[in-house]
């Protein structure tokens, strides 16, 4: 895997499945371990305990609620209001998930994933007056809803949301893929302009063409191995390469950027430029063959800007052009796209949406203020106050984007 940190994911999900070639270059876009499909995607291999015989159910700590095909929700003898910790025991024979849901409506107040047979786990939860039930999801079987229980009292319940299903995510995912496909066309056209300038040895024109082409890529919202090895090839950084900027595997936009802004000759730049064009063409050609994992889309909502904060606002990705804030702005476009396609799902589920929108606008405004015609203030050139404003606004935005991944995590409801 082309990443700085060795990923320990045994179920890495790429937005597009990576093509299988030897890893080239290194990307700082470390894909975080995704557990999205751990239980929800049908029977993914991995740590499945299906088939493992259940240990005899331990005498349940008082009170322990059972999850199993035959005893789902049994044992919830004294439902109470307030902040509390429920004890959940899997008395079945297969690993199962457990939800505490509101009845009717099915809003989830709390969930436990992957409770192995014979295991008791605690579920901290806050319940208010209302009717609830335990929903059991055996890994290899149908979903079962346990008996309804009434909770009396005046306490306010914790926040809940109606689950988002895989089905719900297919439409948004298709929309996002269409956006990416359109963006890749722009990317290719602009990369051709850049490479043509290098080919005719017009480095001034090449410098001018570099940013629009790079931004076309950054707008796609690539983050965390989104495009698999194409991401490394097109937008990899020298960090993690043994010879750094002089490493033969340093390729893509940042390689060309390094040359353009460090006095490299057109002749010498030709090879990296051509290689970039080849990889962009490769990405475009590969897109129709790749299906985006719907469960990854909600992660994109905050991961794109996580990368922006980590690599652009620190100027770590910059190889001389000083355009990190332009990249940040393009990343914000990509983020908006991810949010927009998910918005219909979020409207009824995410109470922080208006503040998130305000934060998107705020970051946009702060970044726009650093654009001067075709040029941008470099991060190093920002005054303390401007830098703090941008960092703070992006940080706040991230706090408000992060819940999207939790809320839109694909879950089964039937």
């Amino acid at each position, binding site marked *: 895997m082309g990443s700085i940190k060795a990923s320990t994911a045994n179920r890495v999900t790429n937005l597009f499945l990576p093509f299988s070639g030897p890893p080239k270059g290194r990307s700082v876009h470390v894909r975080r371990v995704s557990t999205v499909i751990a239980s929800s995607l049908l029977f993914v291999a991995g740590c499945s305990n299906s088939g493992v015989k259940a240990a005899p159910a331990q005498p349940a700590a008082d009170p322990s609620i059972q999850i199993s095909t035959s005893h789902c929700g049994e044992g919830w003898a004294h439902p109470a209001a*307030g*902040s*509390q910790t429920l004890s959940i025991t899997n008395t079945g024979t297969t690993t199962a998930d457990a939800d505490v849901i509101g009845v009717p409506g099915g809003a*989830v*107040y*709390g*969930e436990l994933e992957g409770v192995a047979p014979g295991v008791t786990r605690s579920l*901290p*939860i*806050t319940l208010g007056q209302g009717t609830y039930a335990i929903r059991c999801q055996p890994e290899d079987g149908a979903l079962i809803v346990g008996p309804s229980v009434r909770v009396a009292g005046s*306490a*306010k319940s*914790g*926040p*809940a*949301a109606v*689950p988002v299903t895989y089905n719900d995510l297919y439409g948004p995912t298709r929309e996002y893929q269409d956006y990416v496909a359109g963006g890749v066309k722009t990317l290719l056209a602009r990369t051709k302009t850049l490479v043509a300038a290098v080919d005719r040895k017009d480095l001034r024109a090449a410098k001018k063409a570099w940013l629009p082409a790079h931004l076309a890529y950054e707008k796609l919202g690539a983050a965390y191995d989104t495009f698999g090895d194409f991401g490394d090839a097109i937008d990899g950084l020298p960090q993690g390469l043994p010879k750094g900027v002089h490493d033969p595997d340093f390729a893509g936009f940042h390689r060309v950027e390094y040359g353009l802004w460090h006095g490299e000759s057109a002749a010498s730049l030709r090879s990296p430029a051509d290689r970039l064009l080849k990889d962009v063409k490769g990405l475009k050609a590969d897109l129709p063959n790749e299906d985006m994992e719907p469960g990854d889309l909600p992660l994109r909502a905050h991961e794109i800007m996580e990368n922006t904060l980590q690599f652009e606002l620190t100027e770590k990705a910059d190889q001389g052009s000083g355009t990190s804030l332009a990249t940040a702005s393009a990343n914000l476009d990509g983020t908006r796209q991810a949010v927009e396609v998910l918005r219909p799902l979020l409207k009824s*589920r*995410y*109470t*922080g949406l*208006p*503040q998130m*929108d*305000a*934060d998107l606008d*705020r970051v946009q405004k702060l970044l726009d203020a650093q654009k001067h015609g075709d040029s941008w203030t470099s991060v190093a050139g920002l005054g*303390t*106050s401007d830098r*703090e*404003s941008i*960092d*703070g*606004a992006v*940080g*706040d*935005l*991230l*706090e*408000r984007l*992060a*819940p999207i*991944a*939790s*809320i839109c*995590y694909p*879950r089964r409801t039937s």
Partner: protein
Amino acid sequence: MSGYDRRMFLRGALATGIAGSVAGVAAGKAVAETSTTPEAGAPPIPPFHGPHQAGILAPARRRTIVAAFDVMADGRDDLADLLQTLTDRARALTSGGIPEQVGITAPSSDSGILGPDIPGGDLMLTVGVGASLFDDRYGLASRKPSRLTRMPTFPNDDLDPAWCHGDLSLQLEADDDDTLLHALRDIAKHTRGGMQVRWRMNGFSNPPRPTGTQRNLLGFKDGIANPDATKAAEMDRRVWASGKAPEPAWTAGGSYLVVRLIRMLVEFWDRVGLDEQEKMFGRAKDTGAPLDGAHEQDAPQYQNDPEGLVIPLDSHIRRANPRTPQTDDSRILRRGFNYDRGMDSVGNLDVGLIFTCYQQDLQRQFEATQKRLADEPLVDYISPFGGGYFFALPGVQDSSRSFAGFVKV
């Protein structure tokens, strides 16, 4: 913008963090009754609510974080929201309890580094405001504490702007670093859009070696002659702002805070003879006694030594506190911590003092003292490089009030 309630800070269902629910309060109460005593002899941390902020007079804990923030809140209402959020977090973090459960609607509300049930009574927290908060951004000029200015550059200073000043100050104190870091992480999470850390220094206090006042990193007992914080009349006279003209009324119960980040050139110091060191301080290094006395609490008898033959006239203690009727009202309440932040570029230890002191009047007290200390022999071995002047806000009296009081007045 309709639908946007102006609250830029994470609150409500999204992330109130530690539950303000019935259970949370109950947990806090339970903890308060059985407050963990960090060390034999260390008194329990006072409750958050009170007329004064607890961290001003209460004995120092073992660890601290001192930080200054620049505020980016967008207008006065947002500033009030920011201070309300800060209050909410302070209240929750000091009282402890089980963090709010957010189900599937968000990542966990708490970092979890203190476990699933946050211990209460382990944290002290002191919030201050800098003169810059009263500039034209928020229209608060008329509410500025009358004696609050920007910290000037003193003759022996070598100030780094990146380590100076700030719109807000925050001092966290606890006996363990994880308690401090948990609190700072939580506060930052809830206030990112409204303020950013401008500078931050971690510090520690030393245990008595072997008894009495703690030693600084120059090996001398430091803070022996502090006013007695248990005497209310003394504190009224030296520490608390009165809220009487020319001070705005809201300042009553607050106190002016000076923070000075002072590098100590300890390698150089260690190459200085003991006799010279003791003459610079005016105290014996081993016992802490004034050079004309036997015990650290002995009062130096300057009237018997008018020429400074025993305790030199330019020694630190004699300049800092000449013990004359004329200089008595310049005494300050010191609350120093040591810092250690690694090595410098020539391989020396980058260590020193986070000097903090509280007073009623910056000019009458700290600045008068500082003027007397100008060019004292000790200045060759220390280098003040940062800090600032702040006004530590009055205490939050009860759960219906907040640090935002002076903004909303």
